[in-house]
């Protein structure tokens, strides 16, 4: 039985599954239910200064895909709308009742040293395991020069992080916004400011859809809408890439990463961990299905680790990082070809029409004694994988790496590259 215990930047938890700062962690009632269900930790819904913010009614938008609900999710909510003192009292009680779970408090106050300083002491007093600086909220708060307005300026990130380290002894996790061109800049700023870890991603600026009757962006508030923060399964690829970008940088390698964005299953979590994450945070999947999803997350991850012979999370953490390279490091002499298993083929023709219309005309549509048959034309196949992706049948079209006939060749050395670096031997 695999050991899922986690030590993330010194913060301990029985498993790596934390609830991200959001409505599921807005108050003790929810958090206690989450701990009862088995979650390893929570990042409390972001606290701010009193008086609390005011939220609108009609708050969430979602993207359904072919009738499947919540492929993507967005919200125009702000930070907690409950009084600071009430939150602090609940946090203290919860941590006291659940000492083995990670309890992190998310914070967002105006960008002045005084504001940060004055909130840190009462938070530290709760006995929480650390704080997460919400530099990511892409709407509502950034207009008040908080959230993403800070996260998008590396100098501010460093400055605020430094204040927090200076005015408290708490672990500081800096939550990064993805609404930025290069994630490395704020990550380096956090490190420079003394951050113990980073967490990412916060939500992506988005409009989930336009209500074509009301002619307004969704969610519609009294006939109008605004951009919100996108999350859920649709953002996982964006999050993975940003986590990987940080994990593979030599100077950032020691910075713990809490992976967030579209994590719905143990497999998603395993992918984040393989790309370097030390813990993972979940919001949308819990909002969609309730806290009970953690059962399979724990169970599934543990079973998978057993099947792979991984005893602890550190056994596979970051294992995919060395293989996440720049395009220019990829072998241009590698060749893979599509193979159709004729016994599994159901004759839908999707591989043919996709290749014929949009790719390399490498799949022939034949009729053999009247029966449909689809065949790969090896000479035309570039190994793009499109057919394998469109084929609805598992393992019917597989990509088969061809035996290497030439040594590895990368773009910097390729003859077609005008800026080619001559090989050392020459």
């Amino acid at each position: 039985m695999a050991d899922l215990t986690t030590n993330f930047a010194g913060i301990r938890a029985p498993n790596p599954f934390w609830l991200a700062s959001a409505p599921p962690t807005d108050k003790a009632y929810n958090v206690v239910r989450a701990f009862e269900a088995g979650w390893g930790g929570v990042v409390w819904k972001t606290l701010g200064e009193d008086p609390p913010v005011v939220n609108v009614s009609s708050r969430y938008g979602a993207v359904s895909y072919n009738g499947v609900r919540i492929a993507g999710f967005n919200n125009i909510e702000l930070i907690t709308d409950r009084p600071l003192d009430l939150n602090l009292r609940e946090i203290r009680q919860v941590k006291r009742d659940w000492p083995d779970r990670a309890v992190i408090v998310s914070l967002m106050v105006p960008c002045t040293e005084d504001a940060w300083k004055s909130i840190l002491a009462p938070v530290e007093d709760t006995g929480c395991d650390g704080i997460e600086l919400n530099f990511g909220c892409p709407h509502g708060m950034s207009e008040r020069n908080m959230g993403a307005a800070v996260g998008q300026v590396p100098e501010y990130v460093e400055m605020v992080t430094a204040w927090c380290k200076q005015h408290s002894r708490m672990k500081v996790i800096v939550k990064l916004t993805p609404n930025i061109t290069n994630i490395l800049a704020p990550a380096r700023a956090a490190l420079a400011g003394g951050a113990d870890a980073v967490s990412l991603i916060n939500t992506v600026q988005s409009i989930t859809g336009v209500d074509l009757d009301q002619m307004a962006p969704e969610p519609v508030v009294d006939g109008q809408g605004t951009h919100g923060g996108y999350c859920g399964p649709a953002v996982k690829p964006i999050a993975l890439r940003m986590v990987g970008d940080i994990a593979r940088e030599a100077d950032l390698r020691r910075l713990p990463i809490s992976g967030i964005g579209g994590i719905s299953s143990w497999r998603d979590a395993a992918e984040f961990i393989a790309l370097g994450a030390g813990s993972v945070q979940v919001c949308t999947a819990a909002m969609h299905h309730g806290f009970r999803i953690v059962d399979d997350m724990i169970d599934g991850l543990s079973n998978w680790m057993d099947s792979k012979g991984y005893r602890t999370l550190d056994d596979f953490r970051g294992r995919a990082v060395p293989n996440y390279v720049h395009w220019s490091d990829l072998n241009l002499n590698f060749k893979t070809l599509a193979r159709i298993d004729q016994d599994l083929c159901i004759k839908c023709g999707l591989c043919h029409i996709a290749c014929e219309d949009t790719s390399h005309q490498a799949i022939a549509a034949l009729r053999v004694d009247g029966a449909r048959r689809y065949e790969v034309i090896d000479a035309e196949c570039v190994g793009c994988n499109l057919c394998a992706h469109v084929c609805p049948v598992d393992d019917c079209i597989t990509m088969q790496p061809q035996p290497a006939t030439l040594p590895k060749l990368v773009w910097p050395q390729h003859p077609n590259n005008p800026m080619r670096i001559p090989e050392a031997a020459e």
Partner: protein
Amino acid sequence: MTDTADIAAGRLPPAQLAANFADAHPPLSPHEAVVEASRCYFCHDAPCIEACPTGIDIPGFIRKIGTGNLRGAARRILEANVFGGSCARVCPTEILCEAACVRTAEEDRPVRIGALQRRAIDWLMEHEPTPFARAPATGKRIAVVGAGPAGLACAHRLAMHGHEVTVFEARPKPGGLNEYGIAAYKLADDFAQREVAFILSVGGITIDYGKRLGVELTLPDLRAGFAAVFLGMGLAGVRALGIAGETLGGVRDAVDFIAELRQTGDKARLPVGRRVVVIGGGNTAIDAATQARRLGAEDVTIVYRRGPGEMSATVDEQDWAQTNGVRIRHWAAPQALLGAAGQVRGVTFLRTRLDQTGRAVPSGERFALEADMVLKAVGQVFMADPLAADGSLLLATEDGRIAVDAERRTSMPGVYAGGDCVAGVDLTVAAVQDGKLAAEAIHRAVTG
């Protein structure tokens, strides 16, 4: 045997009867339809299209359902099959489109094409009761005999092309077997009439009821008065068993029994036997037996002279009958109908087996079934008399039905035919395709 035959009406409470003859397969909800539509792979060169006798662009219309374009979906269906609404309900999809669906090969669970087709057509009929736009009038007048699926499909296509169509129909109502033959729970809520009204909304079609070819009119009359004639008369005759006792009370043709059932609004008024024996192996036998059960018959047995594999009723239909509590006995041929006081009381059967040539022959063994009612479902036949003059047929026939070529032309110039009265499978969808092909041929001929 008891003393008197037990045939009675109102065997079940009215609410039970109403439920028994309501929609057997209720429609998909809007969400179910979107989810089901997403199961369609949108195949290239889709096998389902090839398997549909009317060649509906099935992946095309399903994709439109998925995107919420129900209007486009329904119109795509109607372009190929104006009876898309009834075909969605009555087609044996399990041997047509859904058999060919690649998901059948993949996981034995086809996309529910029929149910999706119904979703699209129902939506259009509710939101846009008159969606058809005719081409400018051509001034050509065409005669159609029979207001069944074949005749009306032909009439509709001709009207769309701008021709004026007169339909001569022997019965007082349109729809053919959609109105008089198909099982009640397949076309619930008067769907046959609602669909005919929808089809006729195109304009340019007049139906002349109570006009029977061979009685009120003749083929030469029609030939002389119209630019072209389409015959869609269906099968007017039924086969007899040819055994003793066929005239006993309680012995009926299954199609007549069903027609009466279809035309009786209050099912509590319909008499049905306590024990019913149905003889035959096709869908008519299934429908008669199942509906007898649903009327409240206690014990219903279908007896077929060969095995389950030889039944022309599909496996799904056989399952349906059995789920409804109908017993199916194979390998037995009726020998005599037994009666008392002029009423049927039982049937004796001879067990059969296959001989070397593959024919079912009696084996000599005999058994008897008690019956208060016997329904004969051993096949319908084409009656050629309306096409005869001075004792000889005006048209060539083939296997006892009107002979036609690929364009549905008969041997008489200007006369076309389709549906059950020509050779081929006897299905609503096939009748529609015949009518459509004939209309296109007629259009080419009269405008060419």
